[in-house]
């Protein structure tokens, strides 16, 4: 099963809350440098899958292998340090800090206690911040406090904060929810761009957006995978149609 | 302190002397420079003393009586012309049931206010906290509480009983009256109950030849005695010897009664319940139990009748007087006697004059200061009634204070 091309292999993953199986027998393989979208009706367990991968929720069964390393049972911050980044559904940035400080705080240098205490802003770190700021279109907002950015800008900033860590896998939970059409377009370009040298898992409802970005799509329902493949394959899968129409 | 020069004093004297009353006072009034050689807060007309108790916090419950009694004594002394012709002024400080605050306030009184003598403290902990201050700044503390002993300081006069005075005669009496052989010792968890229990145990085991079937201590403020009471029931001691204090007291006696342990079935002797505590416990929960104290409000003598009347006139007919309250009342009178004997407010002279002082007007009867700065006193056994008053059943001879009792350590 272990194909070198998969950066993340999730097998037979399951979790239950008081007997309710939120995710059950979930299998998922993530190619390198690709965008993999998970779709499914509300309550299908999509966000829970991300929670399980990044360690926020503990799985009750199965395995999560990242580059041949088991992530199950690893602490969250260690998973992040290994190279798995996670964006939350609601923009989660530090409102009291400026854009620059938000980015700088996400830089992987000096994340231990003493590293933090003796952290200095080096030109390299500033350079990296500027580079990312350019990428997410916030280069002219470096000194703006996070709290006063627009909704879309907050989402981008959070993506930018993930990029600062230079992860191999990025997980985005509904990155375009609440965005304007133009912002969506920019976001989809951003996702294409960042997936050139890393893999991205996206949870999304907006089918147009999914079509634009997805290399591969997984459809979830009631905690299980019901279909997987390219967007076209999935769209024509009768099981998928039934779930969506039935819903 | 401004001190008038003797010449000025002499010039004023005839003017003052025009009034007969003043003349009497003046003749009894030695010049300030003579009676105060150490820079204390003494003027020609006044002498300032300190009073240091907890007016707030957990100990306020207990210390209120001492505050009142000391104030009463000072008022009476002032009304009778004061000490060496000087009216007593009191600076009251609140120790707030907090030992560092006691130390702080003691220092303030002695250093900033320059008072030499302080009436105050209640718990052992507060006394231990202020003791180094009094010894270093050379003040005099009149300490009213019955306590554990093991201490003797030139800077303290202990007007309450030390442990052996309160314990030994009481145990002897209960053994004689009740033929008691087995004892259960229960106390709050600090030094006075523990030391008292130790002395009691030594006396029971070595002198009475009885047995101690249980000995336990509960944190101050403990309110649940169910398990303890069951242990008592299991051991069936002849006597429960109780040294429980504070709020725990109330829970302890209420729960004893509710568990069917009443005086009809069980003898209980306590050295920690005075009339003050009974107010909180309720006389009906104590009926028939015994307390060993040197003083009860119901003592039948003339001194006490006058004292009780004065106290009630001042603080209301419902007020009660316990052992420590009476001991607090002794403080100012003993100090007055010492000052007058020494003809000085200087602490060293007061300390030297105190041993051998006698007070025949004490509500408890006759007391005498021992060279170890404790008082000779009697022990009495009272039996509690529903009205919250004790019937005095027994009175010992005068007992010599012995803060470091041989054979009891």
């Amino acid at each position, binding site marked *: 099963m272990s194909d070198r091309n998969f950066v993340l292999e999730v097998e037979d993953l399951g979790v239950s809350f008081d007997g309710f199986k939120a995710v059950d027998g979930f299998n998922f393989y993530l190619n390198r440098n690709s965008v993999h979208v998970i779709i499914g009706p509300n309550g299908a367990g999509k966000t829970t899958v991300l929670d399980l991968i990044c360690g926020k929720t503990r799985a009750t069964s199965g395995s999560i292998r990242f580059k041949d390393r088991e992530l199950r049972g690893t*602490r*969250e*911050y260690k998973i*992040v*340090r290994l190279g798995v980044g*996670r964006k*939350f559904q609601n923009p*989660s*940035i*530090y*409102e*009291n800090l400026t854009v620059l*400080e938000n980015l700088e*705080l*996400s830089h992987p240098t000096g*994340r*231990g*206690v003493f590293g*933090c*205490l*003796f*952290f200095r*802003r080096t*030109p390299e770190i*500033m*350079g990296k911040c*500027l580079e990312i700021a350019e990428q997410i279109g916030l280069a*002219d907002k*470096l*000194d*703006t*406090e996070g709290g006063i950015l627009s909704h879309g800008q907050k989402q981008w900033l*959070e993506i930018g*904060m993930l990029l600062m860590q230079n992860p191999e896998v990025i997980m985005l939970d509904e990155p375009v929810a609440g965005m304007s059409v133009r912002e969506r377009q920019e976001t989809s370009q951003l996702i294409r761009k960042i997936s050139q040298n890393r893999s991205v898992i996206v949870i999304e409802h907006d089918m147009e957006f999914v079509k634009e970005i997805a290399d591969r799509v997984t459809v979830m329902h009631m905690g299980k995978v019901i279909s997987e493949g390219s967007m076209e394959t999935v769209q024509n899968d009768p099981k998928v149609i039934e779930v969506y129409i039935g819903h | 302190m401004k001190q008038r020069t003797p010449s000025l004093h002499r010039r004023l004297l005839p003017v003052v002397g025009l009034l007969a009353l003043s003349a009497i006072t003046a003749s009894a009034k030695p010049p300030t420079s003579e009676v105060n050689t150490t820079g204390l807060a003494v003027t020609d007309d006044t002498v300032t003393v300190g009073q240091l108790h907890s*007016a*707030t916090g957990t100990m306020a419950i207990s210390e209120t009586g001492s505050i009142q009694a000391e104030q009463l004594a000072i008022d009476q002394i002032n009304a009778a012309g004061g000490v060496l012709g000087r009216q007593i002024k009191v600076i009251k400080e*609140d120790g*707030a049931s907090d*030992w*560092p605050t006691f*130390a702080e306030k003691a*220092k*303030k009184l002695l*250093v*900033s206010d320059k008072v030499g003598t302080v009436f105050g403290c209640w718990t*052992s*902990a507060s006394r*231990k*906290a202020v*003791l*180094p201050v009094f010894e*270093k700044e050379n003040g005099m503390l009149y300490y009213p509480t019955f306590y554990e002993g*093991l201490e003797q300081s030139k800077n303290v006069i202990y007007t309450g009983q030390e442990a052996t005075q309160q314990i030994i005669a009481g145990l002897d009496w209960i053994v004689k009256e009740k033929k008691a052989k087995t004892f259960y010792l229960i106390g709050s*968890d*600090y*030094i006075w109950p*523990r030391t008292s229990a*130790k002395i009691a145990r030594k006396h029971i085991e070595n002198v009475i030849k009885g047995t101690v079937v249980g000995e336990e201590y509960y*944190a*101050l403020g403990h309110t649940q005695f169910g398990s303890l009471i069951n242990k008592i029931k299991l051991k069936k001691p002849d006597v429960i010897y109780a040294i429980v204090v504070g709020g725990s007291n109330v829970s302890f006696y209420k729960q004893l009664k509710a568990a069917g342990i009443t005086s009809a079935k069980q003898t209980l002797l306590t050295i920690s319940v005075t009339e003050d505590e009974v107010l909180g416990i309720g006389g009906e929960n104590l009926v028939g139990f015994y307390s060993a104290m040197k003083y009860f409000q119901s003592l039948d003598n003339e001194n006490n009748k006058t004292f009780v009347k004065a106290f009630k006139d001042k603080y209301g007919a419902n007020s009660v007087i316990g052992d420590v309250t009476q001991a607090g009342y002794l403080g100012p009178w003993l100090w007055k006697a010492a000052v007058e004997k020494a003809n000085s407010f200087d602490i060293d002279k007061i300390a030297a004059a105190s041993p051998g002082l006698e007070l025949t007007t004490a509500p408890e009867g006759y007391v005498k200061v021992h060279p170890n700065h404790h008082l000779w006193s009697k022990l009495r056994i009272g039996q509690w009634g529903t009205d919250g008053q004790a019937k005095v059943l027994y009175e010992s001879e005068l007992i010599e204070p012995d803060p470091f009792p041989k054979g009891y350590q």
Partner: protein
Amino acid sequence: MIFFRTLFKTKGEAISFAVFVALIAIILPLALPIFRLNLVGKYLSYGFVAIGLVLLWGRCGILSLGQGVFFGLGGYCMAMFLKLEASDPVSTSIQTTPGIPDFMDWNQITQLPWFWEPFKSFTFASCAVFLLPGLIAFIIGWAMFRRRVGGVYFAIITQAIALILSLGIDGNQGFTGGRNGITDLKTLLGWDIRTTGAQYTLYFLCVFLLLASALLAKYIINTRFGRVLMAMRDREDRVRFSGYDVAMCRTFVFALAAMLSGLGGALFVLQVGFMSPSLVGIIPSIEMVIFTAVGGRLSVIGAILGCLIVNFGKTAFSEAYPDAWLYLMGGTFIAVVMFFPDGLAGILDKSGTLKAKLSTLGTGLMKKLKPAESAEKASAAVAEIPKTAEP
């Protein structure tokens, strides 16, 4: 210069710090008699706890109601050393067993308990003063923060620990001095700590250590670690998923706050001359939180001033109106919490914040007009930007 900048983000901060130093190191010693100054020293020893609380509670959002535990541990370590020194066989000759502390003798202990032995060494005792609280805090903190115990639960559990320790000390008076505490401490390495001269020396020692601790705290607040703490308080998950070990960061701050408290406890003992469980339990622990809240939970200097002001108020008011004092204290406290959550420092700083905000906006505008071209320029520009005012 960079170091200075890390300590003080604005000129105003540097000035207020200088004023504070002048107040406690020059004005008060000149203005007050030694008795009052000694009191100030006692209040300043609570200031160490307050500094810890600023880091832990203000910056990190973790309210500990058990700081008295660490204050007490530090104090007891120092008191044990001093007591052993005061209990030499000559001055304790009237005891049954000379050479051990008097309270042990009263409790029929005939041999020094094993855990007292190391406290004969001054080096051991003075290290234990902050290492022991630090170690215990580290263990407690690690156990709790790793399991994500926070907020109210942490507060209540630490409160229970404070109760356990004070009951434990009370209940083992042969070993601890019990409720009376460890009293009658006289000399430190042969130097009488009760004399006026010694009290001056100890006051200045306390001031010096307090200022050093305050600077350390300010340094921490202004480094990346300080920003991580704030970030953790407001967006815990984001910090965790930026690869920080949140539990370890919190444990570190908790241990640091405990060490500071322990140091405060030791200085308390040296200046007051005794230690008792009444400084360990629930009430002192909450009171120290009160001092911090009144002064300002976000401001190091504010919190120390809070200790001074509340305690002076307590002393002055309880001398004049003992009854009114609790009303005043309770009322002040409710008012501070409800209307001035940032305490006195917050009130004083209102105008300062406004100014700082304006200037930040100004720099931001300038940068908009002239976009930074190179990283060096950007970093230089960034270093110039005043941070949103640290209260």
